[in-house]
């Protein structure tokens, strides 16, 4: 399995490359004061989480993207175990800045890089000065400039990890075809999934003649969403598909493919629906144009909401261990939370697969509508 071995070395190489940034920027050895008490403006999601507000803040923090990878935080000492991810900024005047996010020390200090100062405030990075002042206008909006943020955040790491896993899996599957037509074991399952996408999703919607051109995109979307959803269920704390920017990008891909591959019949059906009386044609045109945009929009919202809601419910049920400790004791509350979380986890596995399936199915449906050849006699 030479491809698998080479990809494995590549994986290790990437991992080492990323962690080397922490040594580049690390000043202290990661000691922080315990953040047990809540701040005035926000409840910090560190230290022991006991109250409902702290749990809410913890869940909210873990649903969002982050510039560092915290595996867990020691309750008493407040020490974080994890590693910081590199921050890559494009400042308008100063150009490209790269440094480790450990310079921010979780938002406490101002990071300095080549003479420019940046402040990390509420999850975003702003230009600032040595003291880290944030100027507000009258509606309490931040006035500081923001550099373009190209950092390697947790979502980027998650997507790269999913891409590497897929390369590994499909590389070894492709290699096994040299030996025999029938792959064995888990690779056979992968082949079944590919055939499922082709026979149940692509061919019924796009048609037998044209589906081959779009199989690359459909397979990519299906397996990428499936892998990312499954990654979100691991304890590593990923939430890639629950981020509306990620799903917006995927929905944009579908949108552009349908627009650029639409043939004359497709555009005719949108702007001048054949087979209807002409007042109806005028009424239908704006509705169809609106439909052109709402369909990918619904793709985006559907996956984002499903994934975020699932992760939120799962984390809330796990937090039941803390909330029910007073009434049922530690063992009782852990038992209840375990049973409920297990149920929700199995449902989330189904939802992970279902969302991948539905996204791919609807994408293929839209593509099929766009490239469909009608046998017209000017009569629908």
């Amino acid at each position, binding site marked *: 399995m030479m491809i698998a071995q080479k990809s494995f070395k590549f994986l290790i190489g990437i991992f080492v490359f990323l962690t080397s940034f922490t040594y580049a920027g690390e000043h202290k050895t990661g000691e922080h004061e315990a953040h047990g008490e809540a701040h005035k403006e926000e409840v910090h999601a560190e230290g022991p989480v006991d109250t409902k507000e702290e749990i809410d803040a913890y869940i909210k923090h873990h649903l969002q993207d982050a510039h560092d990878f915290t595996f867990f935080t020691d309750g008493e000492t407040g020490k974080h175990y994890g590693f910081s991810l590199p921050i890559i900024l494009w400042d308008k005047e100063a150009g490209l800045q790269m440094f480790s996010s450990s310079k921010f020390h979780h938002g406490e200090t101002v990071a300095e890089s080549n003479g420019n100062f940046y402040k990390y405030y509420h999850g975003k990075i702003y230009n600032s000065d040595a003291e880290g002042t944030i100027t507000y206008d009258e509606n309490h909006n931040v006035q500081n400039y923001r550099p373009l943020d190209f950092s390697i955040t947790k979502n980027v790491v998650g997507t790269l990890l999913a891409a590497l896993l897929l390369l590994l899996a499909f590389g070894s599957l492709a290699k096994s075809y040299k030996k025999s037509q029938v792959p064995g074991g888990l690779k056979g399952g992968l082949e079944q999934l590919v055939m499922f996408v082709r026979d*149940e999703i692509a061919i019924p919607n796009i048609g037998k003649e044209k589906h081959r051109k779009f199989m690359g995109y459909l397979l990519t979307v299906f397996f990428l969403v499936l892998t990312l959803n499954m990654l979100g269920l691991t304890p590593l704390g990923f939430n890639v598909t629950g981020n509306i920017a990620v799903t917006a990008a995927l929905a944009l891909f579908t949108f552009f493919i349908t627009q650029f591959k639409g043939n004359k019949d497709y555009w005719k059906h949108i702007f001048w629906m054949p087979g209807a009386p002409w007042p109806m044609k005028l009424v239908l045109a704006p509705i169809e144009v609106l439909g052109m945009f709402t369909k990918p929009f*619904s793709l985006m*919202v*559907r996956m*984002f*909401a*499903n994934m975020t*809601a699932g992760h939120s419910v799962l984390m809330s049920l796990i937090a039941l261990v803390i909330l029910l400790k007073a009434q049922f004791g530690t063992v009782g509350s852990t038992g209840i939370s375990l049973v409920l979380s297990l149920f929700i986890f199995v449902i989330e596995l189904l939802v992970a697969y*279902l*969302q991948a*399936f*539905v996204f791919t*199915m*609807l994408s293929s449906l839209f593509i099929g509508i766009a490239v469909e050849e009608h046998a017209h006699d000017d009569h629908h």
Partner: protein
Amino acid sequence: MYNLIGAGLIVIGAGIGLGQIGGKAMEGIARQPEAAGKIQTAMLIIGALLEGLAFGALILGK
């Protein structure tokens, strides 16, 4: 408070829709067990569309 009433109404709507779909799918499978695969697939698709609506409304409301 009105948030919660709205959320409840959304869930009622989604529940009615999914219940109808599930019921008709069950009837269809009972009539023709060999078409069970296709009916199941169609049921899942429409279920996901409905859920998308419900979740979209929840997100817009919150």
